[in-house]
């Protein structure tokens, strides 16, 4: 009888224990090493040494955010390296770095003792290491997010804040070229690009700002209109042969460029794709007359702020020299209507063809707690995360 009662109580206990939450904490815990993998190779932390490409520039900005206290008015990090939440304790340029918690940081010591970074890890390796619990944090290409989640990786996805757009570099003043641009824009099947290339991580883009930021993105059509594109193409007397460039280091750009070429051909437009050297991080982008001849190119534009006027102004600054877009700066007090009409005027020029909005996707190990997806323009909040020892592998 006693044995039966014991078994019964044991069974009840087992059920109750199984029902308990897996995490037994609420307040942050201190300690541990956060393992991070980067795709980029950062060659130097010296602010005077320019990054070789945008990927390195982005990664360097993330590292700077750990090491420096704050940004100045111009957006650049100011003060001494080590005044931030972490200090460099080991540095093997382009390969590995270890950052130790700054005990005297103005906003309080980070919860983790250190951050260990492996650089130059391919997207495939990063996802694999997340699956195998060999790393705690890594950025994942948006197009691989679904697959990573299917393989059990804990995925954190931002609101779509990076625009992939086609920019015409050799925009002639005539009506004919404007019609060609319009025909190409209408021929692109953005929904198919989102569904098949991005694996549904993102959304078709019709304007220069996403719906969550401006609230007016729905006013810009994203529908493919091949029939219209064909009609426009038929009205053009001398159809030019155009070349679309994409970044040599960007596989997503390549895939999207090839898809755009297929769409254009379906509308009778002569468009070919061509690889172009990776863009320098700081300096001029490819323009008409450069060694590699392209008429248009794909470009990624990441929003520097959730505020629509700030992001639109930044995009205009970036696109202006490439496509010859001139616009007066948007004031801080710009109303949604002002922003919409500014955006609309750029769209009407046809010089920029938005393709898709993509999110930032991160893979995070189960033991990482209090991870909050950074908003557009923010850096990784690694000083705020902590490691739950109950989830350690």
């Amino acid at each position, binding site marked *: 009888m006693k044995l039966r009662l014991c078994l019964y109580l044991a069974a009840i206990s087992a059920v109750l224990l199984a029902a308990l939450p897996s995490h037994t904490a609420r307040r*942050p815990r201190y300690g541990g090493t956060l393992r991070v993998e980067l795709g980029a190779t950062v060659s130097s932390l010296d602010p005077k040494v320019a990054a070789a490409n945008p990927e390195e520039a982005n990664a360097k900005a993330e590292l700077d955010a750990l090491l420096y206290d704050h940004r100045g008015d111009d957006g650049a990090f100011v003060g001494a390296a080590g005044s931030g939440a972490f200090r460099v304790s080991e540095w093997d340029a382009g390969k590995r770095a270890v950052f130790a918690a700054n005990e005297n940081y103005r906003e309080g010591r980070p919860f983790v003792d250190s951050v260990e970074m492996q650089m130059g890890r391919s997207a495939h390796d990063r996802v694999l290491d997340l699956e195998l619990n060999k790393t705690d944090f890594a950025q994942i290409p948006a197009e691989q997010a679904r697959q990573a989640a299917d393989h059990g990786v804990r995925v954190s996805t931002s609101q779509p804040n990076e625009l992939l757009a086609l920019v015409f570099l050799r925009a002639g003043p005539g009506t004919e070229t404007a019609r060609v641009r319009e025909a190409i824009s209408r021929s692109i099947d953005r929904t198919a690009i989102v569904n098949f290339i991005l694996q549904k991580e993102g959304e078709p883009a019709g304007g220069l700002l996403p719906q969550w930021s401006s609230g007016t993105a729905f006013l810009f059509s994203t529908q493919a209109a091949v029939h219209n594109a064909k009609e426009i193409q038929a009205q053009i007397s001398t159809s030019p042969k155009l070349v679309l460039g994409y970044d040599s280091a960007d596989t997503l750009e390549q895939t999207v460029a090839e898809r755009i070429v297929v769409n254009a051909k379906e509308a009778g437009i002569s468009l070919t794709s061509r690889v172009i050297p990776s863009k320098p991080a700081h300096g001029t982008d490819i323009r008409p007359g450069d060694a590699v001849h392209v008429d248009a190119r794909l470009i990624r534009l990441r929003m520097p702020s959730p505020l629509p006027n700030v992001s639109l102004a930044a995009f205009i600054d970036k696109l202006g020299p490439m496509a010859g877009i001139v616009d007066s700066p948007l004031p801080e007090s710009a109303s949604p209507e002002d922003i919409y009409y500014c955006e609309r005027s750029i769209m009407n020029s046809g010089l920029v063809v938005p393709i898709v909005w993509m999110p930032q996707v991160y893979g995070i190990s189960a033991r990482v*707690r209090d991870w909050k997806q950074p908003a557009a323009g923010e850096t990784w909040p690694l000083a705020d995360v902590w490691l739950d*020892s109950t989830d350690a592998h």
Partner: protein
Amino acid sequence: MQLLPRLFFLRAIVSIFIFATVGSTLSSQTLAQQPSQQTPIETEDENAIQLKTTWDKAVSALAYKIAAAVKPAKTVSLEVKNKSSLDAESVASVRKAFTQYLVALHLKIEPDVSGVRHIEITLSESNSEYVWVAEVGLAESEQVVMVSVRKENNDVSNATNVTLTVQRNLLKTQNAPFLDFSKHDVSAGRVSLWTILEAGELKNYGDVAPIPQIHVSRDPRGRLSVSEAGQVEAQVGGIRCASTAGGLIDCSSPDSSQNWAFAGGWESAYVLGRNYFAGLTSDTTRLTGNLPQFFSAAPLVLDHGTFWILTELDGKARFYESPANSAATFSGWGDDIATITTTCDPGWHVLVTGTGDWTQRDQIQVYDLKNHQALANGPPLEFSGPVLALWPSEDGKTVRVVSRNLQTGKYEASIVSVSCGD
């Protein structure tokens, strides 16, 4: 783009003209036709009143813009689409208001047939605002006008006075994080005096006393006590601040860490720059010696001494009758706990926060302590974000709760009590 400034100028002139000509007529007509729309709802929730007013202003402004855009047409068709998070009831109210304003502006609204200018209003939104957009006319000659309305927190009132075994009375919300609070009612409750303890300052009835920032923690802990006479005592990390005879707040030197006082004459040092305590000590009670490091401590004050439940750094809560060994261990509890008494049950109850982290919803569950066992009593009280602080009141019958609403991003001050039955 050179045309843009001219377009704005033109629209401004048109708007001013319309305001000047029909504005006075509209205000009298509108008030006469829809008194319920214009009369503020009498409620103590200021947000709700403001929400109605701002929406009404936005509808009015957009109606004026539409009226200017459709000129010289007198007959229009109207369609309202919702692409936002507004519920059907709100959409219906907005649609009705648009119709009434447009009618007041001498526009006749008819079904959508050819020859009638079509107005398509889309209730859209961004993260921070509702954006209401009107597309006027046909595709080729379409004009777009819009207004925006800042989103307000109008769901907070729903959280007050939840009728549960554990009850919550939401008292205050604010954007800045805070550690503890005190509300002192005067003039028969008509006026409330607030003392708010933040990590860097103590706000006492409008006076602000800075708190020295030396050993800063990313998860600062602070506790506040305000006597009936208005004497303030606050502890933030290792710093203690208190009212002086002159009525000012004076804080201790950050060079010397001040112990926190706990029930029954117990005290503990705070681990500087962290978010936990070094361990309870007492020389005067039966349970002498040092207890381990902890996040929060809930006392059980009995005739023969004060015993403690501590939430410890390993994620477990332990009940101590002696420092050497814990009498019971409780798993699955959050890090913030407090004991509470009720009028209907002489036993001790422990309020326990939930598990997870600060990106998740939270809860407070009551446990009955009987024979070294903690038994959940009644359903938990849900919070729409993490509970950041849980401090017992002086009389032990309620607890002060600081939480963060993840939907609004605001920090909330609540009093939580336990009642018997539903």
